[in-house]
């Protein structure tokens, strides 16, 4: 891929993301996954932690935002290819010169950016309804953590979507994958509270490293080494995920063209 292609593809990613956001604005399921569910989680957690101070509230704000990110990734990005197939647009997308993974990257970018909205809503909820005075411990590092988390989530989503298309039996477990990741990735409470044997599972999840970086820079005033390590892990996972995704997309598209499954028969 040369530099000119990167510029063209990046422009395409931005257009795809913008149009995907417009297209999804009226989708009630997306509003539920991105807005209502994280808000419900935030309200419950804020009530539970209401006497524990603003740090706990900030933890809840970031944590409920992360739940929105994961749910959006799992359901919206995970289904992004099969939903195109059902609405009859998959053939039109595969039949263009832009690589299909670039298109799905743009769609995932839209989903992830959109789900960051849940963090903003949870923040407003904590500040306006629960009266917390919230502030970020390390705003610049937090912003950098958000950007890296977006990359890590998008890259992870690029693996999930083709796996769901190729292995329908995995997709059947989609609902069962939502809450375990909330817990294992430490979105709403530290994984230290979990049994020791679950820790390696947490380390293997990119959302866990996103939670470490975001919680560490927003509330716990974590040492810079811990944040840098989490960033490094997110970068490593993103590179690995992008590499695996590029292979998965090639296999999936070839198989779909052999099996005639680009369109619903």
């Amino acid at each position, binding site marked *: 891929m040369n530099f000119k292609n990167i510029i063209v593809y990046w422009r395409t990613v931005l257009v795809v993301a913008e149009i995907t956001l417009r297209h999804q604005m009226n989708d009630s399921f997306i509003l539920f996954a991105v807005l209502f569910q994280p808000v419900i989680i935030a309200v419950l957690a804020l009530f539970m932690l209401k006497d524990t101070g603003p740090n706990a509230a900030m933890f809840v704000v970031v944590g409920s935002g992360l739940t929105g990110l994961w749910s959006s990734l799992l359901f919206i990005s995970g289904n992004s290819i099969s939903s195109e197939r059902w609405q*009859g*647009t998959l053939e039109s997308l595969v039949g263009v010169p832009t690589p299909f993974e670039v298109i799905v990257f743009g769609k995932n970018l839209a989903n992830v950016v959109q789900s960051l909205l849940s963090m903003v809503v949870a923040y407003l909820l904590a500040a306006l309804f629960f009266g917390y005075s919230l502030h970020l411990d390390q705003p610049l590092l937090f912003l950098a953590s958000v950007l890296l988390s977006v990359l890590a989530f998008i890259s992870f989503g690029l693996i999930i979507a083709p796996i769901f298309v190729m292995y329908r039996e995995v997709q059947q477990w989609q609902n069962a994958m939502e809450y375990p990741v909330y817990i294992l990735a430490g979105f709403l409470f530290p994984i230290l509270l979990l049994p020791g044997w679950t820790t390696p599972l947490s380390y293997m999840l990119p959302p866990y490293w996103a939670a470490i970086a975001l919680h560490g820079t927003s509330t716990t005033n974590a040492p810079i080494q811990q944040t840098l390590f989490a960033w490094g892990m997110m970068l490593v996972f993103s590179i690995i995920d992008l590499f695996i995704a590029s292979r998965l997309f090639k296999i999936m598209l*070839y198989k779909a063209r052999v099996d005639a499954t680009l369109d619903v028969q």
Partner: protein
Amino acid sequence: MNAIEVKNLRRVFRARIGVFRRSIKEVVAVDDISFAIETGELFGLLGPNGAGKTTTVKMLATLLIPTNGTAAVLGKDVVGDANEVRKHIGFIFGGERGLYWRLSGIDNLRYFASLYGVQPEVSKKRIPYLLEMVGLKDRGNERVEGYSRGMKQRLHVARTLLHDPDILFLDEPTIGLDPVGAREFRQVIRDLQSEKKTILLTTHYMFEADSLCERVGVIDKGLIVALDSPSELKRHVADLSVIEVETFGASAESLERLEALPFVDSLSVRDNDQRQMLLIQTPRGAEAVPDIMASLDGQRVGRVLVREPTLEDAYVRLVGGRV
């Protein structure tokens, strides 16, 4: 120079059947077909439902991998050079699917212009031009879900032309359109033809193929059974006349009797509620009418017409009476 070359193309679909004792059923959709389309030619692929038209187009449009054989578009292989082929082709599959209904027409075009790598400054001019060309200039800002079927089809045409492709695959583009919409759509195809685009049009409307195509390939059960200009194809039935007989509730026995008459070359039946239109091809012309009426003895018969054969009649003869 040939824009499209197809050599011994074959496509087999495999479907799993059964619940407990699963087996694989093979269906040959396209069976060893070969043809070539010249640059700037409007070529028609004509055949009944399930003949293999759409499968052929999908292989040429890089959306299906052939089981055997090769196909090249502008000299590029549709499997090995799929991405290169995609830069030069546009395709429409009949029906309303393939667009984002919750987006406006303009947003749909912006989206696909980006996916075809059209520069933003080019698409800014091209999108209004195309909307005007397909008669959607005043409706471009409306959501596609509010469009009629014909408008959606015309938006498909605009989408297909965004990157100004050299080759167009139009798969039954007028299916489901009302007569006015279909006529307008055929005019769009004529306009594209005058721009020297190479067009592969599939249809099962004979008059459409007759009025638009320079050459027509008749495909049946995955095989090309004839390939020629519409006028040459009509010569297949030049020695015949067609007798149209309108009947009301004709029995299977009477139709069998009719088909068994020695001078009946082929018989096809079009059902329309309680009414059937029998299309009888015969070399005897009007002289055959009394014998035909005799074999329909006891049946209620309406209008009877003797006429010259059309491309449709040639087609009926080629595909053995199935329309």
